[in-house]
């Protein structure tokens, strides 16, 4: 039998049935995306975490450093051999730094200045030449050249250990003082950094490492250890496109290299690198993320397998006659299932491959990072293969089962849906129990206390809430069937729609669940992602007080565009207030509102009221103050504030939950700046122990630094809110919900696909009823309206159910999803109302399109044939 045309031609049969072919490829493509996304997302998120960790780190610290510069050529060879097999490693680089030397121009022009020699591999590729040409000599920077009045060809004289030496200037390069973030030069940040007073460090005279021959007199003098010279071997890593498995391999390579070098040179130092620490942190994040999203992915994958199985059921409906025929020839359910598998095989493999490709593109474009480890791409391909295999099995089971019932012609008794109420009660009770089990924190912190991940129970809560909500709403609708029948008296369209709804309780549940599932997931994931992101943003800004905080030297006037978006506050930390350690923040009445991060959620009191209250009636003591008591479980009353030796009475106007610049468990007294200065400044107006901070909103660090430098206003450094908190601690949390949001779109596709399949398989019955109704006088318009009422009302009800089912667990959980609980403010709620609106619009559009398509099919049906065949 297997060698007969129905089986031999099975693999290509679907290609002559475009509707089924597209359905199968589409359903499997969704399945492929769902299956592939999990490993791809995990790898992408890990890469993003790695890159986040690398940001701000010098590649030299990420690669290795070892102090061993004896026999440079031999060590270079040893290090190269130890790391050459690992593609992450670049060739080792030698850096030699001499001690500070005093030098002058041999022509006696210019000044006598201090400088130091530095020899580094490949330095010529990383400087800007101003005078002269590249060559084997020594390079002066432009500052040294100007001070020494020297240029290419001039001779510079210097003394080392009493010996007089000289060298000829090869070229002049642009100073590296503003290049401390350059991946090549950041290694020398300590040597090149300008101090807080704006003074330049001693210039570097750059020399190639091959210039000095080992043990030459000059080398021995300039870089000798006994005279303070140091030498390091950098073992740099190419961080572009580096993935976590790549970093783990590199860490292992580095350990092996260290052992090799140590065996060869027992007195060499260990290789110092941040790589193992960084890799461990990122691996923790990957583990945390895996724990959170794999259960979720499994649920969605099963839904996708269900969709493909539904496509199998659809195939049975479309091929009913053929199956009947084959059955009459003695082909059993197993044979028919095998035939279905043969027919589905090629389209499903194509769909799976398509889904895998789309998932890869999606991750490259929309994922946390475009860098995905090739190993994970392979895993994702295997996952898709496994999912396709599972789906083929599901298709075989569903087709076999349906073929059995279809061919036996045994009319089944209508099942009474007695399972609804028990399942409703069980899922509602389960949701309550899960909520209780989650407790006060939905964030699981790994042992190393570095990475917070989402408690997997958090993902089950919406699932149970969703089931309960769908069953509850469906039950209410089904119980209202008598009323719906009565509403049918309001016209032909209403009559037809109401009869269709009440005739199929299972359709009611399917449509409500189909529309509710993606909406619930979207609202849940969207609300929690936005709430968590907004909370973290607020925490960062609250921690430093604004977008950017810049320590300045006194009550400066913020220059340029900073004038309208900055304020200068005075912060005094850890002082005594009636025996309790508090911080004091003195704010400027005129500018605080424009420069500080403030939201009304902070307190019940408007900011202007607070500022007015602080200003009070006097210009000095006693001070009026508000007290921010975030997390402090203590009663406060008016008391005495002691700063240095000054003791001043403070009147507490009111207490606030939190305030810009406040820390959890650290009370913060907020006072007026002018009154604070009047009370606590010494005779010369100084406030020792206090810091002036310029807080700025709506600017980046670079913009602030540029404005300050341009205006010549002194400052120490800048700090951005976005870099204040340890990003990795909440990355897993944010990414879990990001992932859930991506899956909610896929769930939407699955739901739309399932609903369309269901509508299509019922199309014959719909066509028949249309044919009969037309004969009884129903117009086309009324039939279309009936379809819209039927599908539209149930879909909108589904959207409503989804919103409820998404919001309830999200509202329950947002307060306990706090990965940085020690930093105020407490979690904030941002309801994803835009997503609700989008869901409603999409639901309406899908209803309209599905109804119009169904109407067009009904219009095109052969009425006489329909009436002859019946159903």
């Amino acid at each position, binding site marked *: 039998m297997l060698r007969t045309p129905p089986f031999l031609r099975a693999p290509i049969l679907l290609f002559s049935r475009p509707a089924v072919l597209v359905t199968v490829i589409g359903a499997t493509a969704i399945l492929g995306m769902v299956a592939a996304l999990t490993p791809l997302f995990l790898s992408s998120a890990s890469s993003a975490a790695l890159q986040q960790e690398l940001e701000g780190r010098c590649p030299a610290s990420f690669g290795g450093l070892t102090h061993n510069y004896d026999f440079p050529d031999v060590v270079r060879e040893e290090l190269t051999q130890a790391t050459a097999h690992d593609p992450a490693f670049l060739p080792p680089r030698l850096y030699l730094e001499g001690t500070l030397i005093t030098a002058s121009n041999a022509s006696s022009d210019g000044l006598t200045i201090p400088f130091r020699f530095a020899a580094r591999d490949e330095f010529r590729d990383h400087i800007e030449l101003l005078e002269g040409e590249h060559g084997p000599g020594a390079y002066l920077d432009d500052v040294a050249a100007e001070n020494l009045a020297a240029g290419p060809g001039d001779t510079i004289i210097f003394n080392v250990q009493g010996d007089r030496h000289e060298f000829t200037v090869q070229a002049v390069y642009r100073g590296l003082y503003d290049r401390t973030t350059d991946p090549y030069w950041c290694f020398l940040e300590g040597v090149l950094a300008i101090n807080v007073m704006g003074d330049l460090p001693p210039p570097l005279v750059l020399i190639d490492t091959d210039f000095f021959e080992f043990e030459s007199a000059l080398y021995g003098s300039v870089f000798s250890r006994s005279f303070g010279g140091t030498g390091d071997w950098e073992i740099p890593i190419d961080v572009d496109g580096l993935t976590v498995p790549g970093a783990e391999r590199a860490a292992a390579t580095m350990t092996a290299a260290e052992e090799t070098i140590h065996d060869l040179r027992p007195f060499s130092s260990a290789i110092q690198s941040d790589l193992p620490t960084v890799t461990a942190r990122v691996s923790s994040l990957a583990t945390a993320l895996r724990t959170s999203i794999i259960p979720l992915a499994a649920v969605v994958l099963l839904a996708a397998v269900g969709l493909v199985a539904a496509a199998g059921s659809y195939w049975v409906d479309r091929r009913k006659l053929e199956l009947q025929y084959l059955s009459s020839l*003695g082909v059993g359910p197993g044979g028919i299932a095998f035939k279905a598998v043969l027919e589905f095989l090629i389209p499903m493999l194509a769909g799976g491959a398509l889904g895998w490709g789309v998932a890869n593109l999606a991750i490259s474009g929309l994922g946390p990072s475009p860098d995905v480890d090739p190993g994970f791409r392979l895993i994702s391909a295997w996952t898709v293969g496994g999912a396709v295999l599972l789906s083929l099995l599901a298709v075989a089971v569903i087709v076999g089962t349906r073929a059995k019932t279809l061919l036996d012609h045994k009319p089944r008794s209508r099942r009474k849906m007695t399972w609804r109420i028990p399942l409703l009660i069980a899922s509602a009770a389960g949701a309550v129990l899960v909520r209780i089990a989650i407790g006060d924190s939905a964030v699981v912190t790994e042992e190393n206390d570095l990475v917070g991940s989402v408690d997997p129970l958090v993902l089950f809560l919406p699932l149970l809430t969703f089931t309960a909500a769908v069953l509850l709403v469906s039950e209410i609708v089904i119980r209202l069937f008598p009323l719906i029948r009565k509403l049918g008296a309001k016209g032909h369209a209403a009559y037809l729609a109401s009869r269709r709804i009440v005739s199929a309780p299972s359709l009611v549940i399917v449509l409500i669940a189909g529309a509710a599932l993606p909406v619930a997931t979207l609202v849940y994931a969207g609300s929690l992602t936005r709430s968590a992101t907004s909370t973290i943003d607020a925490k960062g800004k609250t921690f430093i007080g604004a977008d950017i905080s810049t320590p300045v030297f006194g009550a400066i006037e913020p220059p340029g565009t900073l004038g309208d978006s900055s304020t200068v506050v005075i912060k005094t930390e850890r002082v005594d207030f009636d025996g309790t350690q508090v911080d004091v923040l003195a704010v400027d009445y005129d500018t605080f509102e424009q420069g500080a991060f403030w939201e009304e959620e902070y307190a019940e009191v408007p900011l202007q009221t607070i500022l007015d209250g602080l200003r009070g009636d006097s210009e000095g003591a006693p001070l009026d103050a508000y007290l921010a008591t975030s997390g402090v479980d203590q009663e406060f009353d008016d008391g005495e504030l002691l700063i240095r030796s000054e003791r001043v009475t403070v009147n507490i106007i009111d207490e606030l939950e939190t305030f810009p610049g406040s820390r959890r468990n650290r009370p913060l007294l907020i006072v007026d700046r002018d009154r604070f200065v009047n009370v606590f400044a010494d005779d010369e107006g100084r406030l020792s122990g206090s810091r002036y901070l310029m807080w700025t909103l709506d600017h980046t660090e670079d913009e602030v630094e540029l404005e300050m430098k341009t205006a010549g206003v002194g400052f120490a450094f800048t700090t951005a809110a976005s870099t204040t908190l340890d990003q990795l601690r909440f990355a897993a949390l944010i990414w879990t919900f990001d992932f859930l949001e991506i899956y909610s779109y896929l769930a939407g596709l699955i739901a739309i696909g399932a609903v369309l399949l269901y509508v299509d398989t019922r199309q014959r019955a719909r066509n028949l009823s249309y044919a009969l109704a037309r004969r009884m006088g129903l117009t086309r318009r009324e039939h279309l309206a009936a379809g819209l009422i039927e599908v539209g009302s149930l879909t909108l009800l589904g959207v409503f159910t989804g919103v409820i089912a998404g919001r309830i667990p999200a509202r329950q959980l947002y307060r306990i999803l706090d990965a940085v609980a020690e930093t105020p403010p407490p979690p904030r709620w941002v309801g994803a109302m835009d997503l609700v609106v989008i869901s409603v619009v999409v639901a309406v559009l899908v209803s309209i399109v599905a109804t119009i398509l169904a109407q067009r099919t009904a219009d095109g049906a052969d009425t006489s044939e329909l009436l002859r065949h019946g159903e």
Partner: protein
Amino acid sequence: MANNGSLICRDIRRAYQTDADLVWALWDVDVEARPGEITVLAGPSGSGKSTLLRVMAGIDRPDQGSVEIAGSDIFAMNARQRRKWRKKHIGFVFQDPAANLLGYMTVVDHLKLAARVRHASLDMSILEHLEIPELAGEVPSHLSAGQQQRVALAAAVTGGPDVVLADEPTAELDTQSARLAVEALTRLRDLGTTLVVTSHDPEVVDIANRVVRIEHGMVKK
């Protein structure tokens, strides 16, 4: 192609479960069909004709009674054995012409398929007997409904099954096509086939050797 299989149904009862109660589609039905004869199961719609035919084919199990074909009680077999037995010994023709043929197979493919499942050699002369030899290379979509039904009958008898069961073979056909299908049934009878046909078409009843009238699931005496 001729065979000597006879079909005997004894005390067949078949009930369907509805929401309200049990409905007996067949009640103590006794039918006998012999080789070289056309037995027509006649009766109004819903009388139980098609149910009885499916029971005879072993597609549907009776609640009580036996069906013996060529000396074998088909319900003494398990489902797998019955399927294997059915493909060799029973030819079935559905009411809808399109349900009897696969769109992607030619007429000769259908005959080859039938011959293969019954482990018989292909005999193309059946097409000549049914006056459709020119259709051998055609696919079903190129055939009229009457031609499709005659091809279905040809496939049903290919390989020499003991019994050919036809469910309303003329119901979907126009008068001319129905007449050709009736002629085809007559020719198959002449070849010695045991034919059981459900129909309320007077032309089919006219050619019957035996007419079993069924009303409300019972044989009308």
